[in-house]
């Protein structure tokens, strides 16, 4: 049905993730991660015949022709949905492969989020933020933390969600980062540490917020038949979708502030994959802020709207919990690779390469993206 199992992830790659001295330009980090993913797939750089650079502005498809000597790039596209872009690019790649346009599509990202320009500077330059830039930034609504905080506040007021419940997400995510071995944040934290962390934009505290970090990550998506005989076990992409919220460019005008675009995408992806929520062994959920994880759990259908706070309590998102989430440490504690690191981690889990953070017997998992004020994307994958 649809794009079910027409494509698979054949290769994954990451640089080290840092918060410190620059280790290269965005382009250099992008190319480093891309080479690692291509090598993991057992391909040569010239074998790549499709590329979807994740828009950081700094890297375009032409860079891959130039640097990799690609003789005949057959497909290039962008999926400009902020943090929803990498997972949305999975659907784009699978559609291009299903159409017979290309066989091996590279999805790369590289960022200097720590050593380069910070987010509050960058958002001004993004065309998706044009309306907010004209009408809300002059009033002091500058950064995503401020634009998203009213969503969390309204959820708290309507449903009784608490800051301590948000802390559960920060703590389990940090625990996973510590197990990963390639994470920017490795100091254990407690719920009380979260409660003691400084307020950024109420109700979001410092430990509700994701990192600004440097690094690169990439995956190779190949035709499912080609991936069967490649270097590593293939991970099939069984269901995928993107979804956009009402009033996508301006959160303040959204009819339902606590409903994200992924609420529209999730039923399509589950139906395409032919699986139910009970089948999901592990979930890598876009976590620019703790609240965005909680809201997505509801919009994905793991619990009803308003029940996300209770759902995450008691370490439910940790290894051995009800639904292990962000087993790599996520954007909150590993690195902010706009969610490409979530795709990498889901593949690692479904290959059984999760190391100390491996979810025992993981066969089916999902990954989500979130960005640009509420756009959502989802992919459901299985061991192939």
């Amino acid at each position, binding site marked *: 049905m649809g794009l079910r199992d027409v494509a698979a992830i054949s290769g994954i790659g990451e640089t080290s993730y840092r918060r410190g001295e620059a280790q290269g330009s965005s382009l250099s980090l992008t190319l480093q991660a891309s080479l690692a993913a291509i090598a993991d797939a057992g391909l040569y750089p010239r074998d790549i015949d499709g590329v979807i650079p994740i828009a950081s502005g700094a890297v375009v498809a032409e860079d891959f022709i130039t640097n990799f000597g690609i003789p005949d790039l057959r497909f290039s596209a962008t999926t400009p949905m902020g943090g929803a872009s990498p997972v949305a690019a999975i659907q784009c790649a699978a559609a291009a492969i299903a159409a017979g346009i290309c066989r091996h599509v590279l999805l790369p990202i590289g960022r200097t989020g720590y050593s380069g320009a910070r987010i509050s500077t960058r958002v001004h330059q993004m065309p998706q933020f*044009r309306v907010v830039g004209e009408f809300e930034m002059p*009033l002091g609504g500058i950064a995503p933390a401020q634009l998203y905080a009213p969503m969390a506040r309204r959820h708290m007021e309507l449903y009784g969600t608490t800051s301590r419940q948000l802390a559960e997400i920060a703590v389990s995510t940090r625990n996973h980062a510590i197990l990963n071995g390639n994470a920017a944040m490795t100091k254990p934290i407690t719920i009380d540490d979260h409660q003691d962390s400084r307020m950024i934009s109420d109700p979001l505290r410092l430990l509700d917020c994701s990192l600004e970090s440097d690094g690169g990550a990439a995956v190779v998506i190949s035709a499912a038949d080609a991936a069967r005989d490649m270097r590593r076990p293939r991970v099939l992409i069984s269901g995928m979708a993107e979804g956009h919220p009402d009033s996508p460019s301006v959160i303040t005008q959204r009819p339902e502030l606590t409903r994200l675009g992924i609420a529209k995408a999730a039923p399509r992806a589950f139906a395409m994959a032919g699986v139910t929520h009970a089948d999901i062994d592990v979930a890598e959920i876009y976590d620019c802020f703790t609240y965005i994880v909680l809201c997505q759990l509801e919009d994905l259908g793991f619990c009803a709207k308003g029940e996300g706070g209770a759902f995450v309590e008691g370490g439910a998102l940790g290894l051995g919990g009800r639904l292990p989430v962000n087993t790599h440490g996520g954007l909150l504690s590993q690195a902010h690779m706009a969610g490409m690191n979530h795709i990498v981690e889901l593949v690692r889990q479904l290959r059984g390469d999760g190391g100390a953070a491996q979810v025992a017997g993981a066969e089916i998992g999902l990954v989500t993206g979130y960005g640009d004020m509420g756009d959502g994307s989802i992919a459901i994958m299985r061991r192939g």
Partner: protein
Amino acid sequence: MSAAIERPRAEPSPDTQPYWDGLARGEILLQRCAECGKFRHYPRPMCDGCFSFTHTWVAASGAATVHSWTVTHHPFHPFFRAKLPYALVTADLPEGVRVLAPLDGVDPATLRIGLKLRLGVDAEGLPVLRGAE
């Protein structure tokens, strides 16, 4: 001596200039479709109800009720550092649209969904939400 840090501003477009002109006169102008009467905000060229490009500008009544809010403590932009902490409130208007504006003269701790506020224009020609009384 360093230059004064200025408030972040964007260049209005022909679609949005009347809104800013209204603020300069002390009015919050809302677009209303001349065909079907639907209000919309922020300004844009076309009605999403009937796709008409004709509209009128109507001054907001000033009535507003709290929808949600945030209180910012972190200096994301140097201009706002001296104002920390400051509350930004989203408020529903009876006209059928929602606005964002800084809260002035009301303790943020008293905010709750449905609290009545008054939408106005401050001395700098920007929207502001104040106590309803």
